[in-house]
């Protein structure tokens, strides 16, 4: 079945350090979305990547979609305490229903 794995599961960084989380799918994806969930909150959409090799930036966040459309990454430059939370990738299969398969998430802690 469809599996989306994320690493690392946890990451502690000093404020100002960079952070990267990686997402890998067992099958080729139609597209991938990234969500952020603050502690005690609900997932909030960040971005969607569709094209092979696509790179998108949102201020200090850089998102990449692999050439084979089976992996993705989120990189945060110079982390801030407001970046704290769990980052999930979610992939959609190329065919079938509109179901997103969520990764296990990476919980980011930023130490001031």
């Amino acid at each position, binding site marked *: 079945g469809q599996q*989306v794995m*994320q690493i690392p*599961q946890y990451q502690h960084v000093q404020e100002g350090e960079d952070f990267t989380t990686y997402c890998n799918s067992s099958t080729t994806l*139609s*597209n991938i*979305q990234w969500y952020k969930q603050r502690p005690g*909150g*609900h*997932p*909030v*959409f960040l971005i*969607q990547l*569709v094209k092979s090799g696509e790179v998108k930036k949102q201020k200090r966040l850089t998102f990449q979609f692999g050439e084979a459309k089976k992996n993705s990454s989120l990189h945060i430059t110079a982390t801030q305490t407001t970046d704290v939370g769990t980052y*999930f990738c*979610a992939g*959609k299969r190329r065919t079938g*229903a*509109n*179901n*997103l*398969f*969520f*990764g*296990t*998430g990476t*919980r980011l802690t930023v130490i001031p």
Partner: protein
Amino acid sequence: NAGVTQTPKFRILKIGQSMTLQCTQDMNHNYMYWYRQDPGMGLKLIYYSVGAGITDKGEVPNGYNVSRSTTEDFPLRLELAAPSQTSVYFCASSPNEGLAGGPPDTQYFGPGTRLTVL
């Protein structure tokens, strides 16, 4: 717009009890979803609906039932609560599947219901 609302926020059930988790969206979205999130884990899809009157099973449907009589509402029913159903439940909606071959739309999540079964 209130977006996606869920009630209750918290609930404690005894084993064998039943309850309904309510979910309402006021964005006129066709697609609605129910997920569960276990501690430290990702989201698992329980059921989804592509429109009023149409529902389908997700990854972990056992022990749950849904209905979709209106576009706005998508309640989730637990008939015989078990400790394994202790989790946070999120409802989400999205406008449509997107054009054929194109991207799906963003999913908008409700605030969640924290359920404990003792």
